[in-house]
């Protein structure tokens, strides 16, 4: 034990008179020199070299954040658009259905209307024709009657060959007709 201690002590003293610092090579002048060098290094780097690198990192982070935000927004917007399209499709389909229903109803109505119209017109035509017919029949009958009367008168005149008084004549004839009509 004692040997080791003396060995260490010898090592410390034999190197130089400065003790442990000297034996480890620590020199305050060099320490100060080192400190100045390191201080200068930090100063130079912090003043001229780190700022552009930091600025670039900030820019890149900002860009990445912005891109992520934009992507999120785009996704949201596309979802919204899809929803909107679906809603619009739905309303369009509803509207189309409504229109078709209305058209169907209208066409049925029109069919009914036209049927009714046609019926009515047909009826009108039929009644007009009937009326015409009646009128024609009446006219024919009157004509026939007149002709018959004159025919009868002529015949009677021929048969009687004497012309009775015209008035009496007529009275007889109409009487005859009335009787015959009965």
């Amino acid at each position, binding site marked *: 034990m004692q040997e080791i201690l003396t060995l260490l002590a010898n090592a410390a003293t034999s190197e130089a008179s400065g003790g442990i610092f000297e*034996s*480890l*090579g*620590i*020199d305050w*002048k*060099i*320490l100060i*020199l*080192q*400190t100045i*060098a*390191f*201080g200068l*290094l*930090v100063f*130079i*780097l*912090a003043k*001229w*070299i*780190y700022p*552009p*690198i*930091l600025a*670039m*990192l900030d*820019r*890149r982070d900002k*860009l990445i954040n912005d891109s992520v935000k934009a992507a999120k927004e785009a996704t949201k917007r596309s979802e919204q658009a899809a929803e909107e399209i679906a809603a619009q499709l739905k309303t369009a389909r509803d509207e189309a259905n409504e229109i078709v229903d209305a058209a169907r109803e209208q066409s049925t109505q029109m069919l009914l209307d036209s049927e009714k119209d046609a019926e009515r017109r047909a009826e009108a035509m039929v009644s007009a024709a009937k009326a015409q017919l009646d009128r024609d029949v009446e006219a024919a009958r009157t004509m026939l009657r007149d002709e018959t009367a004159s025919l009868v008168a002529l015949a009677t005149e021929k048969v009687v060959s004497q012309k009775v008084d015209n008035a009496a004549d007529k009275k007889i004839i109409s009487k005859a007709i009335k009787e015959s009509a009965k």
Partner: protein
Amino acid sequence: MHGISIKAEPLFEIFGVTITNSILLGILGIVIVIGWLAFTAHAVKKDRDGLARKGFFTRLALWCFEGLYKTIHDVIPNKKVARQVAPFAITIFFIVAIQYYTGVLPFVGEAVTWGEHALFRSQAADLNFTVMLAIITIIAVQVWAIKVLGSKANFERYFINPIKDPIGSFSGLLEIIAEFSRLIALAMRLFGNVFAGEVLLIVVAYLGQYASPAILPLFYIFELFIGGIQAYVFFMLATVFVGLAVEHGGHHEPDHSAEAKRMSEITT
């Protein structure tokens, strides 16, 4: 094999400051970090939406940057503080990763020598670098804690009246010790990993003899993996320390207690 040195060896002096072999490689690392990120920033400037096709290195830088930026926002719910912490924490990641990776370049180590020392040594294998990063981290945590909580509340994180709250006072004391242990742990973890990694590469190269060209690439890949992990661990711890410090005083202010609650919800 000249032997493995735990400290960076001095090469020459400028204005009384000893220039060690790790400083030379450290300058190269800083130039690479600035050049790479400036190239990325330039490529990004022309790209309006961030969607243009980019080269491999630009994409790699952007991938790292974006992942780290999101991690910071996850760890620190306070957006304002998170935005302030981001440049600091992300710079830690890039510089640690690059300083680690420059350490496995072929001309680093015993291959190219200056006098009797290696001309290049990984910056991360120099305690000056790791201790400096740890000190800056711990100071930065304090600065942000004071900014957000106020100097009084930050003071009360560590010094609590022992008569009013004996347990709290003790935990405050532990908190002070924790800050120092964090500092040492941060510095030593990174240094140990890089240093051990380089020693491992040397050992494998010597043990492998003629087979080493076949074996070494595997260990190089392993080193690259460890380098990424260590850079991320350093970055993560710095962020978490700030997050804890900012969240700590939440019990006094209703504004922050909501954040603390949210944070505990995230973690559970």
